[in-house]
């Protein structure tokens, strides 16, 4: 059972961390709480469905196209809506909720509210220490590790990363030092939404596509970022694995309570907000 719990934690934790990193990054840099983050994850899933079913694209091509499309849509949403109101956090939250609802309704209009699916990249499973894991889950974990290394490289080894970190630490000073804060925010939004699209692309072949599918991961992702600390990449990753571990423990030790996963996430969120509102790792991207 311990092996089952560890493997389940790694798989689920990796999925949550991909979503949470994007959400946290954009908060850290642009101070935007983007509730529509998981709606982009949902949009990517529908794009892949449309790509494979309506345009006959290979799933890999459809995934690439979906990530690009969702990233462009995210950038457009930022330029047309969010940028104009980002100085008002409450307005930004409301606008992004509205945006997510609009995306949801558009998907219902276009695809109906049926449950849809896309094929997996590679069929089958492997057995690790007696636990069956699908190849898609293995890919998810590998992609997550690659993504984490890429994020680390981007933030720590490139000028853009330096600018992102500087902006995250102090926007005004970064501006005074000649950095185009607005452009950096735009780039960060692009990366963030790209992550959401990427998460949708690699997770969706194992589950079901429907217009309300953004709500459930939103709750867990919010709990993860609050636990890890809003704006902290490291916190998001650790928070994601803590959440994955909690869920695995519930399923294996309390099978009749496995529906409580969402409630547990919300409980963790509330407890952290009361005891340690800044989360485990503060509010900004670490300089390590």
């Amino acid at each position, binding site marked *: 059972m311990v092996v089952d719990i560890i493997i389940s934690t790694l798989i689920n934790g990796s999925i949550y961390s991909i979503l949470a990193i994007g959400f946290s990054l954009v908060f850290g840099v642009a101070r935007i709480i983007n509730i529509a983050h998981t709606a982009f994850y949902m949009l990517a899933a529908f794009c892949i469905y449309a790509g494979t079913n309506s345009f006959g694209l290979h799933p890999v091509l459809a995934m690439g196209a979906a990530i690009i499309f969702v990233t462009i849509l995210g950038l457009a949403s930022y330029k047309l809506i969010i940028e104009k109101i980002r100085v008002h956090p409450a307005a930004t939250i409301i606008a992004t909720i509205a945006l997510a609802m609009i995306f949801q309704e558009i998907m219902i209009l276009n695809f109906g509210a049926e449950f849809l699916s896309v094929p997996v990249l590679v069929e089958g499973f492997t057995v690790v220490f007696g636990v069956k894991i699908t190849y898609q889950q293995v890919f998810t974990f590998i992609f997550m590790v690659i993504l984490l290394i890429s994020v680390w490289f981007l933030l720590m080894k490139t000028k853009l990363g330096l600018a992102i970190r500087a902006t995250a630490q102090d926007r005004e000073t970064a501006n005074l030092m000649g950095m185009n804060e607005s452009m950096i925010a735009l780039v960060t939004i692009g990366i963030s939404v790209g992550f959401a699209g990427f998460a949708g692309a690699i997770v969706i072949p194992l589950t*079901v596509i429907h217009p309300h599918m953004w709500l459930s*991961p939103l709750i867990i992702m919010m709990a993860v970022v609050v636990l890890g600390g809003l704006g902290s990449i490291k916190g998001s990753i650790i928070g994601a694995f803590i959440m994955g571990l909690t869920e695995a423990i519930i399923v294996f030790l309390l099978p009749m309570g496995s529906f409580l996963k969402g409630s547990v996430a919300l409980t963790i969120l509330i407890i952290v907000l009361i005891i340690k509102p800044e989360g485990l790792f503060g509010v900004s991207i670490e300089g390590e």
Partner: protein
Amino acid sequence: MNISILRRIGVLFLIAGIFFSWSCSKAGDSNVIKIGVIGPMQYSQGKGHWNGAELAMEEINSSGGIKVGNEMKKIELIKADSNEIASITDAANAMERLITQEKVNFVIGGFRTEAVLAMQDIAMDAKTIFISVGPASAELNKRVKEDYDRYEYFFRGSPLNSSYLVKNSFIHLGYIAAVLKKTLNLPAIKVAVVAEKVQWVEPVIAAAKSTIPAMGMELAGIWQPSQTASDVTAELSAIQRSGAHIIFTVFSSSVGVTFVRQAGELKIPALMTGINVEAARFDFWETTEGKCEYVITSANYLENITINETSKKFIDAYRKKYGEMPSYTAFTHSAISNLLRTAIEKAGTLDADALIPILENLKVETSSGTYKVDENHDSIWGPGYSIIMAGQWQDGSFKGIWPNNWKASDNAPAISYEGVAPVKFPPWMIEAYQ
């Protein structure tokens, strides 16, 4: 200036007058029978509601209508999207609109128990006959029992209530366990119960705890994922660890798709049976990318099984018009063609109070078998009445596998429906246990 204002007021009165006269003519049109069809129209369940009703309307209207006393009246359907899967408030508003604005004579449909409970109250307040086609909770008819004067306008159309559904599903389970035991030469059968966390499922869980051991099988465990869970691999790992030979599912939402898909991908060596509403859909093979092979679930309509002539005619007409098998919510066809039509023609009136005693005593063939209600207006289950069949996905087709020489009691005659197929087992399961 004054003339201009007077003109504007005049125009406003004219518009109001036209609108008022249109509203009155609409509400007061007594040449048609207005039937409200309520359901989640963006979902397959709602589409089933509408398609079944639409087919009934076309058949009835093309034959001249329904005879009400001395005159023939045609049917007019009013579609109401309840959006009940997402919002109970929307469902209540949709029912309110049907009754107060559209002034329908009857309402058929509904899907989610929690929403139908709210809809039921609105229909009862208006003393409008409401035939449910979708929800399974026994709570709906418990209200008729406890407060007949208020809830007498409610009748269960389909499916059977959750107690009967469960009883029927346990009979399926017993049949499959017996075949499994014999085929794989297993000394004892272990059953894992996986049920989503919703209201109608609670009695099923309670029944499973006592019934499965009483049937001589071991209960390997009970898992209750969220109805919208997008990942159940942890649950599947735990089920495999439990050594279950059969997974008894109780699903009506998206988790039913996710569970089947992930179980198929992981080739869990256990046979799925029970209730999985999504698995009874004609397009489930495509939705699961073929991972539903060998999955068994309760079903109302099956391609290879003929229940009666009414069912055969309905399925043929439905497939011809919509190019697919009907879902269980398409029983709206029988609700109109067999229940309401027969009752109205017998009563010679659309008056709800006159129709109630007729519906209470009605015994009529429908697409799901012989329909009759008990004293709580709940449709009766059992041999000679409606029973729920079991279907299994085999090579891309949803084939009926039960009833197959089923005896309701030791002395009862064996029941088999024409065309029933044998149960198949996944090769990875045979490999695991032989």
